[in-house]
């Protein structure tokens, strides 16, 4: 006989009680003037700014450009990291040649390279794409490498006994075996991607959400600034949910993923 609280707490809306409460508290404190609107605008004000931007259609352009930057950087960095991870994972000679250099570069926090990056690439698109790609490459490299190395050797041996070679062995045994680890790398890299994008768009921007935020700062439109933060957060959550969806689809054979 479960208590009434347990039954209540299992309803879907229950987990939103505290966050919703905080938002309501924020609104009330703002309206009462306890939080100055110059320090933190009320949720209502942020919502109004959102609606105004939707009406003018500008917001879709901003979101689109930021998202495109992020995804192109992800494709470049992720692609390089993935290929290097595959090579080093499968061929010991490649690992001996390449891995040490990769580890050395990886240990440099990529955001600390920003002054150098500006020097090399200026403040245009290339600089931003470079930073995003650099940040994304390493989680994907590490997790791909690890995934390939931890494929069950028993399965590889079985594959060889049953005549699977080269590309067929890779497609049927090695890649699917490495996939759970690779997908973990992807989810992690997505987080790095958004953080890097936000910082990159802060350096300078003539388009995108960063531009929207910088502009708003010039004109003291704090509600738009808060809106930009919320947009970044929502985009981050959206990309993570899409990645989780992929995970669940690719890994439906896995006993622990099927329960989720």
């Amino acid at each position, binding site marked *: 006989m479960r208590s009434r609280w347990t039954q209540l707490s299992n309803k879907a809306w229950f987990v939103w009680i505290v966050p919703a409460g905080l938002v309501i508290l924020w609104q009330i404190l703002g309206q009462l003037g306890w939080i100055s609107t110059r320090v933190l605008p009320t949720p209502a004000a942020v919502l109004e700014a959102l609606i105004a931007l939707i009406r003018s259609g500008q917001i879709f352009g901003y979101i689109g450009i930021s998202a495109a930057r992020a995804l192109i950087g992800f494709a470049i960095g992720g692609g390089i990291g993935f290929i290097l991870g595959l090579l080093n994972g499968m061929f010991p000679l490649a690992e001996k040649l390449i891995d040490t250099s990769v580890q050395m570069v990886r240990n440099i926090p990529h955001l600390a390279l920003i002054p150098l990056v500006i020097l090399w690439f200026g403040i245009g698109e290339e600089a931003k794409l470079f930073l995003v790609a650099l940040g994304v490459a390493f989680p994907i490299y590490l997790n791909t490498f690890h995934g390939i190395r931890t494929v069950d050797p028993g399965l590889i041996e*079985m594959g060889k006994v*049953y*005549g699977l070679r080269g590309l067929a062995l890779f497609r*049927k045994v090695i890649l699917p*075996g490495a996939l759970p680890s690779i997908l973990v790398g992807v989810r992690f890299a997505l987080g790095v991607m958004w953080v890097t994008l936000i910082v990159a768009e802060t350096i300078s921007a003539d388009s995108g959400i960063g531009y929207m935020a910088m502009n708003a700062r010039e004109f003291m439109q704090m509600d738009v600034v808060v809106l930009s933060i919320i947009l970044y957060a929502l985009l981050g959550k959206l990309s993570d949910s899409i990645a989780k969806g992929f995970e669940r689809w690719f890994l439906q054979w896995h*006993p622990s993923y099927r329960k989720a």
Partner: protein
Amino acid sequence: MTTGIAGYPLAIQGLSKSFGSVKVLEKLNLNVKSGEFIAIVGRSGCGKSTLLRLIAGLEQPTEGTLLRDGQEVTGIDPETRVLFQDARLLPWKKVLENVRIGVRDGNRESAMEALRMVGLEEKANEWPGVLSGGQRQRVALARALAGSPRLLLLDEPLGALDALTRIEMQDLIERLWLRQRFSAILVTHDVSEAVALADRVVLLKDGHVALNEAITLPRPRERDSGFAYFEKLILDRVMEREPSSSYEPKIASFSI
């Protein structure tokens, strides 16, 4: 599933295998006739799995010759299949897809036929993750037999199963072998399993053959007093017990 394809004969001469300084097999001689079922028993570490892997072509011998159907074993051969101790099914492929790996041209019907032979055709569309240990090993058996191999190597395949499932699987393997007549080599530490399945039981000790006993019981094997005679005979040799002087086998109580 074609019957009447002759199983591989094997001729092993002077086979030695060392791993570094450790000599596992020393000048081993063994002959397997086409379609024969051999069991290799011995204590842990006696080299039985190594011998099997050499026959499969997964390892190279240090010395000696290994002839499979008159040809030197240089590596993996498509007519040789291995059943490992764990089922080794690809967890990301459904059961039928796993069995199709065993069929050379990927033919679905052959794979379904193999599943029917082991009695698991209704599980064809399941993920291996939902099957029990015994069922998984049966799928692995279907995969091994789907391509009508001429040589089946079994590396302690039933060790991880419970006792009753083990007996069921032994009956299944015997039935399928009687139908297809491939050559079979079973490595096992279970002497009773060896007597249940094999035409000949080979004991490995100190890296070579210490016993090569023909099991003259009729098939399908019954666990009667004749069975117990052979079991005791081999087990005593494995455990290196001196046969008690008062023991007299009652020859009249089983048929030869």
